[in-house]
């Protein structure tokens, strides 16, 4: 019942007095509200679709999950990674993983997804 355990602890935080999990992990969308003038297409799409979960700061479930998974072996922030490949990114976006649901083409078009891939692989070694 390990999962359920994790489940419960997280929830308990809500019912615990003082700053609960809800608060502790709460995040602000402000970073993602930048209209992105002059920014590369991929960056703008990344901010729009990914940063609420994978962005910097507290309360980003994606970042938290990757931190827990890799324990710092690779950066928890996707846009700091240099090892991501386009196929991998597309696989996650289109199939989802654990709580991350899949994204439809009416949400992230293939073109937008290509741009996000370009942005996230921009620093990869050739």
């Amino acid at each position, binding site marked *: *019942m390990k*999962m*359920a*355990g*994790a*489940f*419960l*602890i*997280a*929830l*308990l935080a*809500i*019912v*615990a*007095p003082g*700053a609960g*999990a*809800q*608060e*502790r*992990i*709460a*995040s*602000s*969308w*402000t970073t*993602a*509200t930048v*209209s992105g003038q002059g920014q590369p297409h991929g960056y703008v799409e990344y901010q*729009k679709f990914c940063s*609420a*979960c994978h962005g*910097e*700061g*507290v*309360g*980003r*479930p994606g970042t*938290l*999950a990757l931190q*827990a998974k890799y324990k710092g072996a690779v950066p928890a922030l996707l846009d700091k990674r240099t090892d991501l490949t386009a196929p991998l990114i597309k696989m996650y976006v*289109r*199939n*989802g993983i*654990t*709580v*991350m*649901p*899949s*994204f*439809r*083409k*009416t*949400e992230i078009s293939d073109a937008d997804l290509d741009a996000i891939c370009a942005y996230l692989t921009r620093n990869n070694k050739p």
Partner: protein
Amino acid sequence: MRTPPGVSASDFSAALAQFEKAVGKQWVFTRDEDVDLYRDSYSPYWHEPEERVVSAAVAPESVEQIQAVLRIANSYKIPLWTISTGRNLAYGGSAPVLSGSVVLDLKRMNKIIEVNEKNHYALVEPGVSYFDLYRYIQDHKLRVWIDPPDPGWGSPVGNSLERGGGRTPMRDHFAAVCGIEVVLANGEVIRTGMGALPNSKTWQQYKYGFGPYVDGMFSQSNFGVVTKMGIWLMPEPEAYRDGRVMVPKHDDLVPFVETLAYLMNSEIVRGTMLLESPVLSYRASKGEGILDKPGGPSVGELDKLAQDKNLPYWGAELRFWGPQNVIDAQWEYTQEKFSAIPGATFKEGRSYKFPVQLQENDTVTRVALGIPNLSVFGLISGTQGHMDFSPIIPMTGEAVFEVLKVFGAAYAEMGVEPKNQFFVLPWAFFPRAFVLLFGFPIEPDVEKNKRTREVFQKLVRVAAEHGWGEYRTHTTMMDTVANVYSYNNHALLRVHETIKDAVDPQGILSPGKSGIWPKHLRTKKA
């Protein structure tokens, strides 16, 4: 290629060809890899034959295109399943009730038509998300707040139609709906309320219009496709503050909730609150459930535990929005009222003036300040997802006691540890009633999911026996829940069916939604 039930492959390909003509080839999805994107990521039938799958998806971009799609669907009797942003996760996501339905995906209809700062409303299309609307308001520096649910990637149109809730004083989302545009199954476009008046000046300012007030018929419903919706916004308040109220003993809950109901029904305390129990949370952290299981500790023992650990038995964080002097007075009066309960204690909370630039590490619940985010998913990380069981109960302490006992007994009877499902004490998402949220984890494990479904259905029945009904449910549970709303031999459901047959004779719109099936599929009803 999958085909919808009762539709021949040739008819289906003919329909798809016409869909492509209507909306453009690239907006009709038939390849499995595309269609799979419409599976419910949190399906309790994941990888089981009963999983509700989609045969295709069509994504129109305008009312005219929707009309065309409906015309085609009518001529080939194609069942459509309408989604706005398709983020109704825990209640079915983007997947249909009827396997093989074609998803009518409105995500591309994402225009924010108007945000009015003087009468405080927005007029939006279904594909607009809370994030989009928030961003629009920020970019235009408008002094109005939205009321996002957690999470914020859903659609104001979709969430309001499903009667979801947020945390600010505009928490009751359906109550904030003012004027909708609907495409009926026959392709006819109606506008409700004042929208029926050509060049109306108050479509988003006055709800009822003239004659029957029909907006509600299109919520949790399959009577039409909502293509525009007016939503009331809150003027940016001058200030915010919150504070905690706590009482020491188990039995204090009765006066505690009575006081709370007085304050909320008087609009002295507004917004959504969550009942807390520090002592029960402490027990839960030691591996005990929150529910009151038979043979569990007596009230006396629990009171003693609370005393020994110096933990309050009950508490709540209360929030106040408005002019500084008013919310200060409201918080003061709130403390006076609760002080009538011996041993009541209070904790000052946060306080802001608006507009505010929050620090990233600020611990306030963002949605309570009208800021959409996704932090709620942090609560369920490590699982495949979850499915919610959410009954409405009276806003009284007695009802809460009964709930803890009744569900505790139900779990014991099933030999399931309540902590298998996450359970929190009641929320006040709506005025004058509490709602409970049981989160059932969905796991990549067929056996576990099967058990989860059994528990879920048992809870629905037990709740119904005690007069508690769900406010909303997962698509795979809609028949189960619809069937307990059975007063006078399902008189209400039969009225829904009568209307369904009259306004959608071919039964093309979201068959099975909320237990409402078109005539030709009605035998399917459990």
